[in-house]
């Protein structure tokens, strides 16, 4: 009786300690290790759970004018460091064009003036940075769905990739260029807009002039600034690190709803 107890106790204790030790041994393991892959499996679980609960239309909370943050933190790039951008800014973006191509029926280019003539949506929403801070701003822009209706989509299109004018990290191969991607569920969400206005004024350089993405059900790093081109694709593998975004290539989740 006693012997049996000890064996069972050892087994249970061993199991509990073993699991703890396993967890701790993998502590500083990188994203590509076995532990890293196991931990990453929670991301798809989170995404499928949230998508199931949200449905396609559930909206992010919209706030009132009174809630707008007096000072909205400028994060990431505050001024793209390139001659191309400097020239565009110098002429107040009259030469800037948003290129929409890839798996679309009709590749198109939009000037800022053309975008401002399209149906617009204004929304006062909360911006949540992955670091932990939040700020509320009023965004005005064209629903991405309007753009995609104009260009049409080929049946193989699955993601919209956003190419930006800024390099957050200066590298020789250009891998420090900012980019982001969303799938078609978010691309056609009513609050997903290409914003040219913030708090009733034209978007400032610090916040992504002339155009930035707003995907309101996800974190700040999805809200790509300084948009230059939207490319419709069937896979994210061919872009830089293959994870679908600048921060995603540096270990952050592609699905940033949490």
């Amino acid at each position, binding site marked *: 009786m006693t012997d049996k107890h000890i064996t069972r106790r050892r087994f249970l204790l061993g199991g509990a300690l073993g699991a703890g030790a396993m967890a701790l041994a993998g502590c500083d393991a990188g994203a590509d290790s076995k532990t890293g892959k196991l931990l990453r499996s929670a991301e798809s679980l989170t995404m499928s759970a949230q998508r199931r609960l949200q449905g396609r239309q559930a909206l992010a909370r919209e706030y009132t004018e009174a809630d707008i*943050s007096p*000072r909205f933190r400028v994060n990431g790039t505050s001024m793209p460091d390139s001659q191309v951008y400097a020239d565009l800014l110098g002429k107040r973006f009259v030469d800037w064009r948003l290129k929409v191509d890839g798996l679309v029926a009709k590749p198109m280019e939009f000037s800022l003036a053309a975008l401002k003539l399209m149906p617009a949506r204004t929304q006062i929403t909360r911006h949540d940075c992955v670091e932990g801070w939040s700020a509320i701003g009023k965004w005005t822009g064209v629903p991405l769905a309007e753009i995609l209706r104009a260009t049409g989509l080929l049946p193989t299109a699955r993601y919209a990739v956003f190419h930006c004018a800024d390099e957050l990290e200066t590298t020789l191969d250009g891998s420090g260029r900012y980019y982001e991607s969303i799938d078609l569920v978010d691309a056609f969400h009513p609050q997903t807009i290409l914003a040219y206005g913030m708090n009733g004024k034209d978007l400032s350089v610090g916040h992504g002039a002339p155009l930035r993405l707003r995907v309101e059900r996800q974190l700040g790093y999805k809200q790509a600034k300084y948009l230059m081109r939207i490319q419709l694709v069937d896979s994210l593998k061919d872009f830089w690190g293959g994870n679908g975004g600048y921060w995603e290539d540096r270990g952050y989740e592609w699905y940033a709803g949490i």
Partner: protein
Amino acid sequence: MKPEQKTVLVPRHSLMTRLTHWINAICLGVLLLSGLQIFNAWPNLYWGQVGADSDHAFLSIGASHGQGAPQGVLRVGDATIPTTGVLGVSSVDGQAVERAFPAWLTLPSFQDLAEGRRWHFFFAWCFVVNGAAYLAYSLLSGHLRRDLVPARAQLAPGHLWHEIVAHARLRFPKGEAARRYNVLQKLSYLGVAVVLLPVMVLTGLTMSPGMNAVAPFLLDLFGGRQSARAIHFITASLLVLFVLVHLAMVLLSGVWNNLRSMITGRYAIEESTIHHD
């Protein structure tokens, strides 16, 4: 006839209670350490919907840069507490580094928000599944009602006071009285299982912009995303306090007997038996 003391092993914890207890312990450990890593990315707490640099933080951990080396400080309201060595500024490989919580309290030890988040969300799922299994079992088996909800008589002020004084004097129930949880145990276990841990889950979900679209009422319940973040941190602190007291009680009231009961399920009590010669 003479009374005689005899040690008997009585069944104390069901297999489900023991299993979920240890899984929960592992999850909470990982969640705490990875949570502090996440906190370090923005070591300021605010009340309300928003909070960033220009907003008033009611708690922040940082470094003050006067003359000489940076000094670690904890600011709570108007108070500034020097915390060099632990909070704000601490040593990493012999080098003084500016970071809110020290390397030995974060997972991973080095500053890496992305990896901290991966640990946090993986173990958050484990924690939620485990906790839901425990709560479902406790409700269905009657464990909650039978073992955790205090009886009316136990809640009488006189009885409560008696238990508090006895605990303070480190006099723990013996014999028949030790068969069941005392009222302080019941209240603290119940508080943790049905209040603090569910609040952790709900405030955690309130910080998710995806979940805000699903359940916007959570934002109203906790007073905003930044309030939810603050409550998440405060509740985590209360859980740490609970664990410290819990471990102290386990040590003081018979560490081997307590450990055995949570591993094999059997708890030793002294029983008086009356022998008829």
